[in-house]
């Protein structure tokens, strides 16, 4: 098991490094990186001072090394518009997104296990068909659009929910609802398929032949096996959730990392963009590692290998 975990951790590390390299070289690819880091209307003096400060006149490998050393110190340079280290707004915004993502993920997992299991119990039945249709609908709806329509309906027409901000519980309803759409639909389908597979499996036959009740069959023999396939997908969903968070935070004006990134792009604040992307990536890799641990806990066949 430790070998398996070490292997996975190594893969995550390689992926993270690949991203760091990608960010570095993409930034240099455009020619003069001052164009990236400084606003379009920066004066020549400003550009020169900037280039000297960051050593853009040095050889590329030297630059890469000092870039790596800076990263290790969480030094992403200065934010141009906030006149403070770029990492500061990122660390401020990160918990907001994390909370939003966690609440959504927990809700999506719980709801999908319940809905998917019930649908799997009577495949082809009315509940199953409605659940399937809704999950396809969830996968087909543009999240930014449904967010706008939600604001139009609940805030503008009915006036019962706030349009933006993070103050009260009411503020959470629409963002979480919109963010839930995609993972809930997908996970429900996955739980359903996995559960149908498990319920038709030979070992469930054995359990029934032992005299196990339907409840015991589902919860003792079913859920744990079905969770194996759910967990593998949940990892990809965690990454996809960030996609949704960018949209949701933009539309609902949440001071999260997605919002920060979009603003950084609009203000051409490359240091902040770079910091937020690397911090997000780090978070996702930690998440994937946790998922791997959970997987190997649940599946003894992995543990042995």
């Amino acid at each position, binding site marked *: 098991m430790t070998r398996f975990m070490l292997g996975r951790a190594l893969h995550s590390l390689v992926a993270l490094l690949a991203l760091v390299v990608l960010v570095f070289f993409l930034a240099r690819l455009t020619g003069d990186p001052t164009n990236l880091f400084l606003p379009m209307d920066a004066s020549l003096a400003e550009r020169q001072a900037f280039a000297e400060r960051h050593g853009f006149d040095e050889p590329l490998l030297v630059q890469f090394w000092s870039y790596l050393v800076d990263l290790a110190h969480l030094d992403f340079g200065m934010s141009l518009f906030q006149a403070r280290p770029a990492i500061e707004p990122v660390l401020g915004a990160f918990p907001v997104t994390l909370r939003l993502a966690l609440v959504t993920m927990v809700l999506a997992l719980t709801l999908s296990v319940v809905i998917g299991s019930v649908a799997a119990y009577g495949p082809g039945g009315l509940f199953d068909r409605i659940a399937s249709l809704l999950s396809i609908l969830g996968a087909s709806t543009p999240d930014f659009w449904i967010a706008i329509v939600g604001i139009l309906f609940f805030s503008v027409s009915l006036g019962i929910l706030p349009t933006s901000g993070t103050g009260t519980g009411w503020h959470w309803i629409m963002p979480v609802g919109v963010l839930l759409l995609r993972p809930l639909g997908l996970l429900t389908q996955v739980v359903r398929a996995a559960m149908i597979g498990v319920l038709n*499996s*030979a*070992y469930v*036959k*054995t*359990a*029934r*032949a*032992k*005299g*196990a*009740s339907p409840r*015991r069959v589902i919860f*003792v*023999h079913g859920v*744990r*096996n079905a969770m*194996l396939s759910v967990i593998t997908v949940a990892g990809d969903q965690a990454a996809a959730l960030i996609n949704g968070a960018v949209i949701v935070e933009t539309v609902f004006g949440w001071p999260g990392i997605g919002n920060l990134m979009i603003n950084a792009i609009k203000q051409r604040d490359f240091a902040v963009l770079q910091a937020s992307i690397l911090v997000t990536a780090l978070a996702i890799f930690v998440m994937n590692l946790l998922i791997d641990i959970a997987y190997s806990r*649940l*599946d*003894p*066949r992995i543990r*042995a290998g």
Partner: protein
Amino acid sequence: MADPAPAPLLAVERLAVDFATETGWFAAVRGVGFELARDESLAVIGESGSGKSVTAAAIMGLLDPPARILGDVRFAGESLLTMAPDRRRSLYGRELSIIFQDPLTHLNPVQPVGWQIGEVCTIHGAPRREARERALELLARVGIPDPLRRYAAYPHEFSGGQRQRIMIAMAMALRPRLLIADEPTTALDVTVQAQILELLAGLREEYGMSLLMITHDLGVAAEVAERVVVMRRGEIVEAGSLPRVFAAPRHPYTRELLTDRSEEYRSPAPAAAAPLLAVENLAIRYGAFRAVRGVSAEVGKGEILGVIGESGSGKSSLAAAMLRLRPCDGGAVRFRGQDIWALDGPGLRDYRRSVQAVFQDPFSSLNPRMTVERLIAEPWVLNPGVVPRARWRERAAELLEMVGLAPSDLDRYPGEFSGGQRQRIAIARALALEPEIVVCDEAVSALDMTIQAQVIRLLADLRGRLGLAYVFIAHDLTLVRKFVDRVVVMKAGEVVEAGPAEEVFANPRHPYTRQLIDSSPELGPKLAEWRALPDPPAPGPARGAGGPPAAGGG
């Protein structure tokens, strides 16, 4: 109607099971009735599609909609089909239990085996501690070494035979009165099969339980059963005491099953065969594992070489090496005296044309997206010049006829054929290049007994007509006995015995060969004994006999 005698332990009455299919209801079991007394052992014999396993599933309440069950199943006088679900569940696992063919898939992969055995006890109300003790006791009883440590191990950490022992321990946990064994040894090697059957016999004696053995293997039935029921296409065709049915079968199908056809497979061996394909001191490794070690064998023109071995004996690696599918890690394979890996150009083409193969699984050996015509013509695409393109269809039709199929089958897809028919198509394809040797890697193992007989007869016939040589790889001794000219017995990657088939089978010199022969359930001697009985013993309880089944059921 009042029955003065005590109710039989199990009574299946006019049982009918239908499955919903694309084209409507499919009757898997039709009007099946039999009884099983206390302490009795009954074998239900049938080939695939006979409905024997469906019957077992119906008894154990394992069929769900869209299956439809009619008729009745009574256990100790109570109807299992109509009783309250709670009551029924309290019987399953405690009073009647079941073991299956494939123990790996039938054990939960994520739970320790000890827990799974003990679960039977906890489901039926035993406290955890007691369940654990019972599980440990059972693990020891079924012969799992070091039960205390193995209690917490998972199914994938055991061998096939051990997994079946674990299944048996699970079924025995609460000393049931009836054990249903659904092809319990089919997936196992013959030597392991013998051990499992012995274990079952011992447990039966110890616990005094009834046994319902579902099997396709007459030898297994003869070993364990007192009475038999023969099923075919969902119906019982014959029932009675085992000696009576085996010694004097009444139904033509039973007779067909029991005929000793081995003489039919015999075909004249060539006088003195010059070696065509020779394996010299072959070694094959998979990492550190040495699959084949120092194996030598040769096959001459028109000769049939049998290669016998259990799983892990290296016989399939040997086949792959002969077919140039896998490089040798030592030694060589020679075709007409030349190393096959040194061949190129015309020499390689000649080798490819001359050495063809038929594989075990008729479902995966034919590309499902190609018509039969394209399948048979593929060798000609790859070897231009053998048959002119204009004659492909005609020649493919000829080949189909040669293997007993119709030319009209050319435009159909493999999915439309049965396993036996597919294997015939594979043989037709192997013959397309007019080879001199066909390597048959377990070519009949996946087929039903009667189909196996047909395919082997076809192969014997083709050797006579075309002068083919075969390398016939098998784990089943009964079929190859009379079919092969010479035999090589392999164990753990090595040849333990080789020689003319009749000599080896009559006087095995190596203990392993003897063990193999002794383990394969052999009917011959017992049949002679039963047939010699002055008066065939009366068939078991008359009610058990099938008679013409009531069509459609209740």
